[in-house]
């Protein structure tokens, strides 16, 4: 019988580390360190984001008081005299987010329920790639569509209040909402398909219809995944720049009529960036202050979303 005792360094001759093996182990260690550095680099990116936002933002708040930033209601940082009341662009951001969620939540979840509970394999194989194409349409093209189609053909025709001009926050919000439908649909569908089959079968055995199984059994069971999808959708809507910049115009306004021209925080950043502010000017620093604000909001939303997903994974894996 061959001895199998390689414990304590008494490895059989063939298994002892020869020169070639040592080289292989060295390569292994080298590759591991190198790839680990690539992974660690991603943490460096976050640090870089925070540093490059916070430092100029601090400088900004030395020039503009927090009282003026949060306490006044006129936003005109690139004009003379400059005004730094942030609420108009916060309002624009909230409008775009709310409108886009009103579009993407019901229809995104509708698509998700359809794909997960109603469609057969063949239909799914056709629809899912089409949704991916929708998700992959560049925002600049969606902006074109919002400005030259949705505003004149839909919003200007059917919106009952006030006169709709060239630019409209409503059009921007609608198109951002449609852009997000595939995201909501795919995340919510993932959550719903990972609900165990047994729950559905139990429902059917009790005589439930397909609709009842979908809305009363699968939907609640997948709720935390669905919440994660919605929160992520909100975060995408808040950060969307190009569509809002093209379709909603660049005039900040505190308004109750969503069809009017408006500016969001993200679209302000784009707008100010195009203007090519000279380094160190207050206009230039404003980009960073607003950017920090935007980053902080989406960071909170992302963490909520990641947590929600984790909770739902713990239950069903």
């Amino acid at each position, binding site marked *: 019988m061959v001895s199998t005792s390689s414990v304590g360094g008494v490895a059989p001759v063939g298994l002892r580390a020869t020169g070639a093996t040592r080289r*292989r182990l060295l390569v*292994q260690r080298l*590759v591991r360190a190198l*790839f*680990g550095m*690539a*992974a660690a*680099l*991603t*943490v460096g990116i976050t640090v*870089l*984001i925070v540093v*490059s936002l916070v430092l100029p933002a601090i400088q900004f708040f030395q020039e503009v008081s927090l009282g003026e930033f949060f306490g006044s209601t006129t936003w005109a940082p690139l004009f003379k005299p400059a005004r730094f009341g942030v609420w108009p662009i916060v309002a624009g951001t909230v409008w775009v987010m709310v409108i886009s969620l009103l579009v993407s939540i*019901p*229809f*995104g*979840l*509708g*698509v998700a329920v*359809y794909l997960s509970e*109603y469609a057969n394999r063949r239909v799914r194989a056709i*629809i899912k*790639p089409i949704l991916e*194409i929708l998700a*992959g*349409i*560049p*925002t*600049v*093209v*969606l*902006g*074109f569509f919002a400005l*030259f*189609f949705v505003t004149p053909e839909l919003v200007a025709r059917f919106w009952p209040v006030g006169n709709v001009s060239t630019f409209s926050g409503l059009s921007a919000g609608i198109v951002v909402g*449609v852009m997000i*439908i595939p995201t909501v649909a795919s995340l919510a569908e993932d959550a719903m398909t990972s609900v165990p089959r047994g729950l559905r079968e139990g429902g059917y055995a009790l*005589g439930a*219809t*397909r*609709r009842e199984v*979908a809305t009363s059994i699968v939907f609640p069971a997948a709720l935390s995944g669905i919440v994660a999808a919605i929160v992520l959708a909100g*975060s*995408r809507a808040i*950060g969307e*720049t*190009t569509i809002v910049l*093209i379709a909603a115009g660049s005039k900040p306004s505190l308004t109750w009529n969503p069809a009017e021209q408006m500016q969001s925080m*993200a679209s302000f*950043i*784009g707008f100010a*960036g*195009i203007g*090519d502010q000279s380094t160190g000017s207050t206009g230039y620093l404003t*980009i*960073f202050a607003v950017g920090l604000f935007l*980053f902080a909001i*989406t*960071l909170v939303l992302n963490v909520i*979303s990641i947590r929600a997903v984790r909770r739902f994974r713990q239950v069903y894996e």
Partner: protein
Amino acid sequence: MNDVVPPDLRTGVSFRRRVVSAVFRVFLWISLGVALGTLAALLIDIGTEGWSRLNWDLIKNMPSARPRRAGIQSAILGSLWVVGTTALISLPLGIAAAIYLEEFAARDRWYNRLIELNIQNLASVPSVVYGILGLAFIARGPLDLGFTVITAALILTLVVLPTVVIASREALRAVPSSLRQGSLALGATEWQTVYRQVLPAAVPGIATGSILSTSRALGESAPLLLTGALTFVTFNPEGFTSPYTVLPLQIFRYISEARTEFRPLAAAASVVLLVVLLLMNSAAIGIRNRFEKKL
């Protein structure tokens, strides 16, 4: 047997519940209709608006403030340069990070968990924020590379890197662990196992993810708005340090021109961009379908 059951119990559904079911089904179709209908409307709108300008002149001519002569040549070549460079930087980095996290890293270490959480978060940072970082750190500030091809590529690398990592990790995770165990049992090191067994098996998945990430870089406009490529660039890029424009920015430029003659031009350029993206997407989907059948 069936005949004994009263009709209501045989179908199992009362009239009211059947109506609710039907209404719900209609709602689902409407949801699908909104998504697919908007896509169709968009494609038709762009196609009809851009039709008059879809010809070789569009591709041959340089961007210009005179709409009759304006084209997108430097934008197409600019996109090729920028997106090519982005792929060269982001794909090796992203795939390496994915291999580390999926194959080498000990899951229970805090720093590995931190890296994972961090990548998930980076994936949903608004892309315009990367533009701010690029403006402060790459175009100006410490790196001071100016508004050039390499600046744009570095910014887009930041934008797509998390997506590359996440997609590559999924592809690696799909490789059955028996393959790894077999290789390790034969005395291969972890790296040899990854290089000779896991990677070849994961190549289709990684390729799909890589193509989709690259196509995202191709369509991205927001972060590049900040690194000021919005003037008419009337020459093609010649290297990493050339000034540039890319297709999405050129489209943005034409949309923001007040004169309506620029509208068909913007639409035609959009058609070109969409066709390239569609080709890339179908390549990715094709690779994935072929791969799925094999499993």
